[in-house]
């Protein structure tokens, strides 16, 4: 493989979209070509940069949409038209489908659908209290046109300090599990990289490695745990990643980390991998790792 072909395949490699043969050829080329290894690192940085632009939609907009859909599905009000639009999909009043007619009508009559949805109003910025958002938890209509509303307030505040400060570290550890923003998760994992000696940080990084839906965050977590690959809990997580991660690049990186500090269990993990692995390249890496350990490829 020449450098041009390698550069074309690097993006697809990071997305786990190469065939086993293609990955093997790329790996061989990367072993020999420092320039393309640099290109791979650049591509990883591009992924992390793009992750920062992939935030979840604003919660208030999502809740507006849910309320409007609830009203439209309920069918008591025409679908609400938002804003001033000069073009867009045609809007219509919902015609209840026949399959749902009985139960839906009964539930709609009770205000079930819209009621439940509107009771979960979005966090709405309070213009009178900067940095505070409130979420309506309960609405209780009162006699005389009054209403009693229970709200839950969320207050924003700024934390400043170094990673040595426990509030900062705690915030970053929590941010690793932020379900809405892969950019925040990637930043947190990257910042925590040098703190993996701490049990709570390592636990967060292991969580990201095993559970984060974003390939880039899982890559980052794996890199951050490289120095701790001999720890038992890390090895157990890597063994699970071997069998479960959807990205073959991450699976083969996990093979490398486990093979670098082999123990009694790693042979079984690699043999288990070979029972199910369908990616030719990952299979080959597993076979080579077992051969390097002097262990049989088959378990019987």
């Amino acid at each position: 493989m020449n450098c041009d072909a390698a550069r074309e395949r690097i993006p697809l490699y990071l997305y786990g979209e190469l065939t086993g043969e293609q990955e093997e050829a790329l790996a061989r080329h990367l072993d020999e070509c420092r320039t393309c290894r640099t290109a791979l690192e650049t591509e990883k940085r591009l992924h992390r940069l793009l992750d920062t632009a992939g935030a979840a939609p604003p919660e208030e907009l999502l809740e507006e949409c849910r309320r409007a859909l609830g009203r439209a599905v309920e069918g008591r009000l025409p679908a609400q038209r938002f804003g001033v639009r000069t073009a867009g999909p045609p809007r219509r009043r919902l015609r209840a489908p026949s399959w749902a007619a009985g139960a839906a009508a009964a539930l709609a009559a009770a205000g079930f659908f819209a009621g439940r949805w509107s009771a979960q109003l979005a966090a709405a910025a309070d213009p009178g209290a900067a940095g505070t958002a409130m979420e309506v938890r309960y609405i209780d209509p009162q006699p005389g046109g009054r209403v009693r509303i229970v709200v839950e307030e969320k207050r924003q505040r700024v934390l400043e300090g170094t990673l040595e400060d426990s509030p900062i570290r705690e915030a970053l550890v929590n941010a690793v599990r932020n379900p809405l923003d892969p950019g925040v998760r990637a930043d947190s994992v990257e910042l925590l990289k040098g703190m993996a000696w701490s049990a709570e940080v390592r636990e967060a990084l292991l969580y990201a490695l095993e559970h984060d839906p974003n390939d880039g965050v899982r890559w980052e977590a794996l890199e951050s745990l490289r120095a701790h690959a001999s720890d038992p809990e890390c090895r157990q997580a890597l063994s699970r990643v071997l069998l479960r991660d959807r990205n073959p690049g991450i699976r083969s990186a996990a093979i490398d980390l486990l093979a670098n500090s082999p123990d009694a269990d790693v042979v079984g993990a690699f043999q288990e991998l070979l029972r199910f692995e369908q990616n030719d390249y990952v299979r080959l890496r597993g076979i080579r790792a077992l051969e390097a350990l002097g262990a049989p490829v088959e378990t019987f």
Partner: protein
Amino acid sequence: MLSGDPGEMPAAISSAPAVDDAALIRAAQRGDQEAFERLVRAHDRAVLRLALSLLRSPEDARDVYQECFLRVYQNLHRFRHGSSFQTWLYRIVTNLCLDQLRRRKARREEPVEGTGAAVSRGRLEQMQEARAESDPQRRLLSGEIGQRIQGVLQQLSPKERVVFELRHYHGLRLREIGDVLGTTEEAAKNSLFRATRKLRAELGDLL
């Protein structure tokens, strides 16, 4: 199996929420409104995110969201188990967004400062920045680098944008993206390749 097929992925690393779509769909098909609501809530964040990313207008994204789930509601009885609900849903929202982009192009609504579309984008940026307004670094990121990235994403063709969004931010495999767009995996791969090449060229100074 470890083929990398999201359908075979453990739920913990799936891009879709860990809910049993099949059970919810069956219940919703029997008229269970709560099941339909749970189905919506399991997927609507992704739907809105895709619409917002492609259209860059909260108003248009809100319309697409509603139209998408109304179509699901009205056609759920036709959904055949064994096929992917997620793919069906993405196909609906993607087609609605592409239709909207075509309408904009036909009516020459695309970015002209001061028009409705530009005002909508301004509102979207305000909404996005509001979440990070107390953090100077995040504000800087969303205000400058974020806008720069969005600007480059807007330069991609609609098809490249859809493929990139679905692969990078929604975690769909190229084979699934091909199904969503009614094209081949190879065509989706080519679109992804062109998109990443453009992004790398335009954002190279930030890397």
